[in-house]
């Protein structure tokens, strides 16, 4: 009996405590001395190579704290492993929001992982900032006003290739090979954005499954369509096959290749470096292995950070300049908040980045956001395969404003 009474008492007490607790939480995740930031990363599991992004962030915020923090507060960066599994992302995100009471989520990685939490974040009105994924849907401020991406989306990338193609060959016929998933379909959308009603007349699009053994038949039918331009939007294994097959059948299109699949080791070498000469791709970050940036101020800043805070980090790993760039963008947002770290205020500043220069972005690429623009980076520079390396050429090209 006593037990039951105690139960009842605790049940009654709980709601009585809750409202006063809620009042004290007007600024979730922010106290007089610290601001709590949450993050999920695949430190284990199939995508654990990306864990270096999380390590970089941890080191970055340690640097910020060493330099005095932001708005008079220290940053408490809490990052959890989600093993690249969406249910685990939901669990860890709820832990961050409900238990650790973070002010916002920064740079969680993975398209599926972020899809699993996007509704939760927006229902709870918790900022869900600068996600590590190239899907285009994070830019839909109308539907998910608390969520924003960072890197140029696959759709933007496709727009840039088509813009360049129309400059070079106004009457081109475009063959489009894409992987039949979110990633590949973003490219189809991007091509359609630029071509509009001309799409059906100009483009021959063929998809393949991620599970297909080869794409030989797709390449042959694309060649048979009489196209003189090829856009390959597929993952590394298939990209290597495509480059090889296109050369073997003696087809010589102007070839654009998604920057997801430009690794020298996993794409260009297996395909045969000489077969790929002239292939065009795009970039928005400075490549840490490119000698052109040996004396670049931005990259020197990044290298100094690496030397002091991540001495064992691999300087050739492109994840580190990426992480440094996105964390720098966040710091600008926090500075613009001027000490007002309410969630609404943070979102106002997220949507108020004006021509921000980021140390690890290519010169001239500026981060811009607005209440109706949740695509922070929409410019890229093209790069061409020389047979040994990717070489930048031409000016910056901007994606379409939709």
């Amino acid at each position, binding site marked *: 009996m006593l037990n039951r009474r105690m139960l009842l008492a605790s049940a009654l007490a709980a709601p009585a405590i809750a409202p006063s607790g809620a009042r004290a939480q007007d600024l979730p995740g922010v106290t007089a001395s610290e601001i709590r930031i949450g993050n999920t990363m695949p430190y284990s599991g199939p995508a654990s190579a990306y864990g270096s992004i999380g390590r970089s962030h941890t080191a970055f915020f340690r640097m910020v704290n060493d330099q005095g923090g932001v708005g008079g507060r220290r940053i408490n960066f809490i990052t959890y492993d989600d093993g690249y599994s*969406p249910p685990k992302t939901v669990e860890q995100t709820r832990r961050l929001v409900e238990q650790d009471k973070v002010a916002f989520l920064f740079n969680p990685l993975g398209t*599926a992982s972020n*899809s*699993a939490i996007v509704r*939760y974040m927006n229902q709870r009105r918790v900022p869900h900032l600068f996600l590590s994924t190239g899907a285009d849907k994070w830019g839909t401020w109308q539907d998910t006003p608390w969520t924003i991406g960072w890197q140029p989306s696959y759709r933007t990338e496709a727009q840039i290739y088509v813009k360049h193609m129309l400059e070079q060959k106004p009457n081109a016929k475009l063959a489009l090979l894409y992987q039949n*998933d979110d990633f590949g379909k973003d490219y189809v959308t991007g091509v359609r954005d630029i071509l509009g009603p001309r799409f059906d007349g100009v483009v021959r699009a063929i998809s393949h499954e991620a599970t297909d053994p080869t794409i030989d038949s797709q390449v042959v039918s694309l060649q048979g369509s009489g196209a003189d331009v090829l856009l390959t939007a597929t993952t590394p294994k298939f990209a290597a096959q495509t480059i090889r097959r296109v050369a073997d059948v003696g087809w010589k299109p102007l070839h654009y290749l998604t920057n997801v699949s430009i690794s020298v080791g996993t794409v260009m070498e297996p395909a045969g470096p000489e077969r790929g000469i002239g292939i065009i791709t795009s970039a928005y970050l400075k490549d840490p292995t490119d000698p052109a940036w040996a004396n670049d101020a931005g990259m020197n800043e990044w290298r100094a950070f690496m030397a002091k805070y991540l001495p064992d980090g691999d300087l050739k790993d492109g994840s580190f300049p990426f992480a440094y760039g996105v964390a720098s963008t966040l710091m600008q947002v926090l500075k613009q908040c001027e000490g007002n770290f309410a969630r609404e205020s943070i979102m106002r500043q997220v949507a108020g980045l004006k021509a921000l220069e980021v140390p690890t972005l290519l010169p001239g690429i500026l981060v811009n956001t607005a209440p109706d623009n949740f695509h922070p980076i929409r410019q890229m520079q093209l790069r061409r395969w020389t047979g040994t390396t990717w070489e930048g050429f031409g000016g910056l090209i901007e994606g379409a404003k939709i």
Partner: protein
Amino acid sequence: MSENLVLPLSTASARPATSAWQRLAFVLAGVALAVLPLFLLESFHLFQLTMAVIMALAVLGLNIVSGYNGQISLGHGAFFAVGAYVTAILMSHLDWSFWATLAPSAAICGLVGYGVGFPALRLGGLYLALTTFSLAVAVPQILKHKAIEDWTGGVQGLFITKPEPPTWLPLAITADQWMYLVTVGIAAACFLLAWNLIRGRIGRALMATRDHPTAAEAMGMDTATLKTRAFATSAMITGIAGSLSAVAVEFVAPDSFTFGVSITLFVGMVVGGVASILGSLFGGLFVLFVPNIAEAISKAAPGVIYGIILIAFLFILPDGFAGLLRRIAAKLRGR
């Protein structure tokens, strides 16, 4: 005939008898233990506990076929996925209520399990393990297939909403609390049914088939039927767990059901205790909470820490939590 029936009864009565009031006390204590977190935990921990109970239920399913019937399955993640997707598809495309999806989900998983049970008759031991494993590897890819993409949502997955607490409840509770109650209720029912099944004639037949198939057959047991039906029942229970996980997480995607899920369930079964009903519950708690502990110790290599904890557990508790409980119980009785 009558002697056959008497025999198990007499072995049962050889154990120290538990009187009716003792049993009632156990049940009440169990109910109290299950309901207590509702008032003590905040919503995030309640969600974690809900997920742990769901994993426990899935482990229970695996335990029936692998633990009690000796057919090693490394593919139960597939049934988990099928259950989750049946619920998600019915809820998001046809606007069914969650409750209505449970029966079709269980039925479909049961059928799939029955189908898998047939090749299992010919494949023993390691071969069966590999066959079921290939099922677990195949399912996430099948879910992405073009032909069913309109239903499964492809790589994008499907969003659903967890059931709102009914208005007739005396206490106002949150959706998380309701989800916990629903999960515990369904899981308790499944555990009770499984316990009844195992304790009775069929349970003994399952174990006999596992321990000595030839003798079991000589005793007149239809081992083929037993094995396929054990697979079906097991898949059904794991499928129900999948359904619950779909609504608890409110999202399903192929990436949620990689072959890792099957391994997780297997780990849960071994750590909890092979062929133990109560052990399944511990197994569920283990696979949900221990990875978090491992991560708290080291972010650089959570997998290594998890592995070390796992090895330590297997070393200290070679027959799982259930074995530990059995040993403690035996000691208490011996005194």
